[in-house]
């Protein structure tokens, strides 16, 4: 028998391969999983002030600091927010009962808030809290939430005292907890994020790997879609910057951009990762929300001219879309007799005239799943992009009638453990005589989708996170009973139910798609992109968004 000897060429090749693999190895400077949530920064220097939104009493003024850059002197606005998400996989339940495999992001902080349908963007005092017990593997929000609200922990999963740093809470994490909780905890849509203008936002993406696809070495990223004047480093396009390998954490750093409805998604192989479910929502609330009671909104918008970063002058900036309104309505913060459960008022944009005021807001993301593609994505086959065809048409990851099922939906994962897979119902409850803001975004990857309102007209106030206002200050809002979006677009709509003779207590209206073939759940000729609008007999509790 002839011995099989490797050729000299093969030896050289292997030696070269080994060298190529070894060369880039640097001394380990940091652990791979870690979170970041500073309690204070240059922009927010006093730690004690960064755990709540201070009132907006005027523009921030700056003075040169000891290291030559500007530091805030008066009116430090905004606070610090932090969030951790996993990049991995999971299952979701479609409205026909099918369990669908996803590449997905899941919550690794703010778990109680996410399970309750709230954003998981937390202040440092909440994020930097170590869980006082042992987190149950799987999704602790489902397994510990045997009675509603019993799981209240919103800190960063894995956070642990750093033994190398005097047991400080410095972002050191126990990777075991992260894998215990983060594996197979994907959500559709991905964890909700919400920040306020002037906030600094530290968003940690932790890549836990995709346990159903051990053949894949997928990186993930976060693309904050629509962030104006973005840096490419934090833009999340792997071709244009960096992507995060399995076993690593990367903290994206943003100063909150102008108020508006944005969204976010992974940017790795977008036709695949977006179709597979790596899509989420983020919105930025305006500083007008934080104006003290009784302050004229027009005046407050003029204050913003005092800081060049927040100023908006059409004469100097062609992308300015919220200049002073042409008509000063004289509206002040919460100055009329309208009953609202959570004063001061909330606004979608810095309008200066109160026209974007709303009582209750709903984030609503349109998406589509092609079950064939998801099956292929689970089973190691070549993916067809030309033939991609959505068969599930989703509002916040659910099709009708699941859209009107209250509370989070859960799906068993491959080990039988239940995980919250679709935390967001899309029941639009409007207080009697009130106004609901719909923050609608679309991340469908195959086709345009139309959403129509059967009943209350849609007042379109903004498009692509920009107020619809011309350079002369005229509001360009328009009423419609339908809106059409392609993937990568967003708009803001107000459903104005203030006419209580038309929109009476207890009445139900519908949001549905007139793309009638999208009113289906795969083979079921029923369901799809549809949900209900309820007029409450009283107010709406802002937390569960239920009629009271």
């Amino acid at each position, binding site marked *: 028998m002839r011995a099989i000897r490797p050729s000299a060429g093969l030896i050289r090749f292997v030696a070269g391969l080994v060298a190529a693999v070894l060369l880039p190895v*640097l001394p380990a400077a940091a652990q791979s999983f870690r979170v970041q949530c500073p309690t204070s920064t*240059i922009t927010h220097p006093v730690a004690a002030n960064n755990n709540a939104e201070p009132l907006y009493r005027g523009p921030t003024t700056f003075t040169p600091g000891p290291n030559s850059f500007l530091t805030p002197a008066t009116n430090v606005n905004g606070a610090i927010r932090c969030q951790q998400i996993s990049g991995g996989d999971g299952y979701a339940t479609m409205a026909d009962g099918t369990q669908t495999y996803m590449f997905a992001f899941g919550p690794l902080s703010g778990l109680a808030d996410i399970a309750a349908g709230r954003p998981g963007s937390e202040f440092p005092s909440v994020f930097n809290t170590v869980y006082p017990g042992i987190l149950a593997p799987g999704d602790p929000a489902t397994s510990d939430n045997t009675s509603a609200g019993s799981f209240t922990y919103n800190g960063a999963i894995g956070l642990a005292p750093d033994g190398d740093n005097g047991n400080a809470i410095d972002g050191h994490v126990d990777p075991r907890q992260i894998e215990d909780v983060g594996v197979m905890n994907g959500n559709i849509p991905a964890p909700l994020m919400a920040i306020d203008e002037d906030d600094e936002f530290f968003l940690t993406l932790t890549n836990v790997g995709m346990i159903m696809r051990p053949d894949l070495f997928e990186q993930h990223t976060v693309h904050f879609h629509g962030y104006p004047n973005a840096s*490419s480093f934090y*833009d999340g396009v792997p071709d244009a910057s960096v992507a995060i390998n399995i076993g690593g954490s990367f903290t994206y750093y943003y100063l909150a951009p102008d108020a508006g409805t944005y969204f976010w998604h992974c940017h790795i192989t977008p036709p695949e990762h977006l179709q597979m479910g790596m899509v989420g929502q983020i919105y930025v609330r305006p500083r007008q929300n934080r104006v003290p009671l009784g302050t004229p909104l027009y005046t407050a918008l003029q204050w913003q001219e005092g800081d060049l970063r927040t100023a908006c002058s059409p004469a100097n900036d062609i992308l300015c879309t919220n200049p002073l309104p042409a008509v000063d309505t004289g509206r002040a913060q919460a100055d009329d007799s309208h009953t609202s459960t959570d004063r001061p008022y909330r606004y979608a944009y810095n309008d200066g005239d109160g026209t974007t005021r709303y009582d209750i807001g709903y984030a609503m993301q349109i998406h589509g799943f092609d079950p064939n593609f998801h099956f292929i994505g689970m089973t190691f086959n070549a993916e067809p*992009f030309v033939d991609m065809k959505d068969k599930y048409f989703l509002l916040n990851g659910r099709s009708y009638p699941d859209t009107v099922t209250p509370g989070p939906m859960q799906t068993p994962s491959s080990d039988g453990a239940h995980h919250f897979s679709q935390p967001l119902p899309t029941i639009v409850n409007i207080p009697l005589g009130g106004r609901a803001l719909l923050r609608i975004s679309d991340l469908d990857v195959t086709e345009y989708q139309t959403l129509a309102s059967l009943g209350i007209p849609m007042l379109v106030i903004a498009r692509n996170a920009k107020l619809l206002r011309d350079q002369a200050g005229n509001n360009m809002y328009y009423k419609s009973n339908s809106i059409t979006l392609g993937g990568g677009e967003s708009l803001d709509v107000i459903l104005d139910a203030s006419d209580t003779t038309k929109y009476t207590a207890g009445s139900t209206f519908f949001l549905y798609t007139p793309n009638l073939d999208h009113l289906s759940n795969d083979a079921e000729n029923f369901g799809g992109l549809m949900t209900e609008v309820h007029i409450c007999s009283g107010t709406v509790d802002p937390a569960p968004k239920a009629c009271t």
Partner: protein
Amino acid sequence: MLITQLKEWTERLLPVALASLLCAAAQAAAPGITGAPGTPAFNLIAEPANINQPDGNQVYSWGYGCNPASPAPGFVPAAITNAKCPSMQIPGPTLVVTEGDTVTVNLTNNLPTAAGNTSILFPGFQVTSSGGTPGLLTQEAAPGGTVTYTFTATSPGTRTYYSGTQGDLQIEMGLYGVIIVLPKNVPAACTSGLHAANLAAEQFHGEKDFRLAAAAYDNPKTCYDREYLFQFSTIDPTIHQAALAQVNALVGCVAGAPGCSLQVPTEPYHPAYFLINGRSMPDDMDPNYAPEYPNQPYNGDPHVHPGEQLLLRIVGQDHWQHPFHEHANHVRILARDGNLILSQVPGSNPAAVDPNDLAGPALFTTTTTPGLAMDGIFYWTGRGLNWDAYGHNPKSTDPLATLSCTPDANGYNTGFASTDTTYSGPANTAVWDAVNYYEWCADHDKPLEAAPVGDVASGGPATLPNPNILTNGAWYSGSPYLGPDATVRATGPNSSFQPANTQANPADERGFAYMWHSHNEREITTNNVFPGGMFMILLVDSREFVIDESK
């Protein structure tokens, strides 16, 4: 990405991709052809030819081109090199005329006889036609024949032109193009103040002016510093194959005789190629007039410097909509099909009353619509990042790390007095020539990193992870910072690239890279393979890098 796909990509696309990347970085412009001042005449011809796709396929197509029997046209912008106008190209030649011109287009039909008549529609103009034969929508050129269209270029803007004959087939086959009308009177604001400074900064670094004009319209709010034209279209290869098979079967048939026509089904429509300016990624990143694409002369490779106002001319040339997403900032829509969108009612706020006020939306996703052309303005300045994008470090010994930043009235380092927005005094060359011209001064010297390893300021909010947990993209600059000097300071001369990293963003560039693409994400594929399709990279370059759009 699936392993199988990766393998496929490597085998089929990588050689092309690498060829593309190894080319000197290409840049874009909006090149086109011109005629006699005041009375331009364009002698076009419709012809078949194959066009190249990055998977190696040659797609049989029809396109407009310059009639080789006629004198060659003029080419613009003047700074563009290697310009040519083949007898068939996709998209068709971009016709560049001036407001008020009397435009003549002589179209000769050199399509296969079985393809029948052809024609051109110029939506937005009052067209008079002569010669040819009557068609449903306009006069047509019979096989071998010629038709003449004449119209006055009444108002500025970007508009599409395309076949008015059997459009579902002929436009799919490639018979479309763009006509750009330049404003007759460029507002003074476009050649003074900040726009003059932007031009002076370009010229200091040896850059040529690649604009067709300094304004898109007779309106001072439409001034711009750089411009690109992007035409979006799709190809369903089965239609093209069927057309070719029928053409071959009907060779020698007599025009107009029974049976001498094509019966190609155009529905159901199943496109596999998603094109910008007739090319799929990565071919769109090769230069204008690159010899590899004899019938696809126009590219899609935008570059811009901070602060420059970038005019985008965006055109939908197929029968689908494409949500074109511009990373990095919004785009203010100026006009649709050459119609400026202005404020209808002057506001009662006295400071805002200006008849030139714009009313088009600002969008981060500009949906292309079949047959629609829109003009918009984009810029990038880094305002609001809250850290110094140039990685300045006042403690450094590198002179480029210790540049100063003097804010103008808007907060930018432009050399204008902070109280005077209409400054037109002598050139402030010290600022205009600086690498950080147009820096956002409020963040000057402000650190990003808490404890950086390199020569950039420390004490910032963020800690970057070990580079080993990251994978670098081909267009990654190598650091979070803008420009070669900042990147070298931040990472050392060897940078943080992994040894095997392919670098499309060369060492003398290190710009901020952004993906500009269709957000119906399956359209950034080429015949089932990712990446490809409607996918470009915008590079925002610091002033150190010379943008040469003739490449």
